[in-house]
């Protein structure tokens, strides 16, 4: 069961990766990164159970946090430098 779950997660991670590579707009890529991050959290939690060492959950927790922070950071600086480019090229 857990193995099945891990395989599914890996597949979806691959899909998200494909979207991040193809993604026509930058937002697509951000979305894909976000999805990828959540799936990584799940994958690590599942892997912790798979290996029988549930202490790994700490890492999953960190991932959940960091993923959020990095999405926010990306959004902020994306908007920020876009504004700059508008100002720079009137």
């Amino acid at each position, binding site marked *: 069961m857990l193995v099945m779950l891990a395989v599914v997660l890996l597949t979806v991670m691959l899909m998200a*990766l494909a979207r*991040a*590579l193809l*993604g026509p707009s*930058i937002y697509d*890529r*951000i979305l*894909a*990164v976000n999805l*990828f*991050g959540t799936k*990584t959290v799940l*994958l*690590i939690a599942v*892997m912790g159970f798979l290996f029988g060492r549930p*202490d*790994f959950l*700490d*890492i999953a*927790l*960190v*991932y959940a*946090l*960091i*993923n*959020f*922070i*990095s999405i*926010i*950071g*990306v959004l*902020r*600086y*994306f908007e*920020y*430098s876009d*504004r*700059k*480019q508008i*100002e*720079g090229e009137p």
Partner: protein
Amino acid sequence: MVTAIAIARVSDLFAAVMLSGIYGLLSASFFVALDAVDVAFTEAAVGAGIFPILMLMVLGVTGRYEKIAAERKKARVKNVAVLMAMLVTGGLLIAGMLDMPAFGDPDAPAQQHVNIRYIEQSPEEIGIPNMVTSVLASYRGYDTLGEVLVIFTAAMGVLALFSSQLFSTGKPSIKSEKNDMHEHNVLRIVSKILIPLILLFAFYVQFHGEYGPGGGFQAGVIFAAGIILYTMLYGLDKARQVIKPVVLRVLCAFGVFIYGCTGVVSMLSGGNFLDYSVLASDAIVGQHLGILVIELGVGITIAAGMILIFFAFSHQAATQLGEE
């Protein structure tokens, strides 16, 4: 793992940075699969969190697209040369790798020397379950001291390069209001809930490092990430009121100072430099104490250094934006 190829091909630098974020996540999950829990911890916080953010801030200053048009003419010859060089290096590496022991082989030479001692002796000698922490803080205390110093120096170097008015506590810079993300109300509220949790979690990681994955390095980075989130949402000036850069600078040095002092104190009490067994009457209690203090020093330095670096970049980006 082939994300990297894609990174090399994309010319939009933003896309490249996003991909490198994914790359960080991927390599971190790879580390988990290889049992390197502590490393995955750090790589998660650094590779997927702080590195892309720093990169993006720099991109905000330097411009988003790389110029390719002019390069293409002479690129052909150069490409071939570079590919040749790569093939030669790769071939040499492969030739060297053929002699390496198979993956996961327990009899490999790397598994034979100090490792056995670390694994078998450290519970008796140090008395804490996380071997990584005990090796990090106790057996290889010198290395860690050196690394903390490197980070300290790097933070100072960044500050020196941006000879800014970051430390002038007086007037707030003029054009900071428009970067404050005022429009994102939902974000601000949710982050208000999250930031204390993040900081609390950082402390948990700091003091739990002896028993589970974690320790000063990770805790410092997570703490810094919490503060960075705050800075991004509320603007640099607000964040500078909360944590004064001058205080940060002192803290950054103070962490190294604590670390060094522990060594000196243990020397004064009759042991070697950074030999914690003499810090208390019982050797194991002494080791506990020493590791705790040292991890604290590491955590303080890393957190302060990262926040300082972030502040410096963010200040630089703000002034650059104002100048244009």
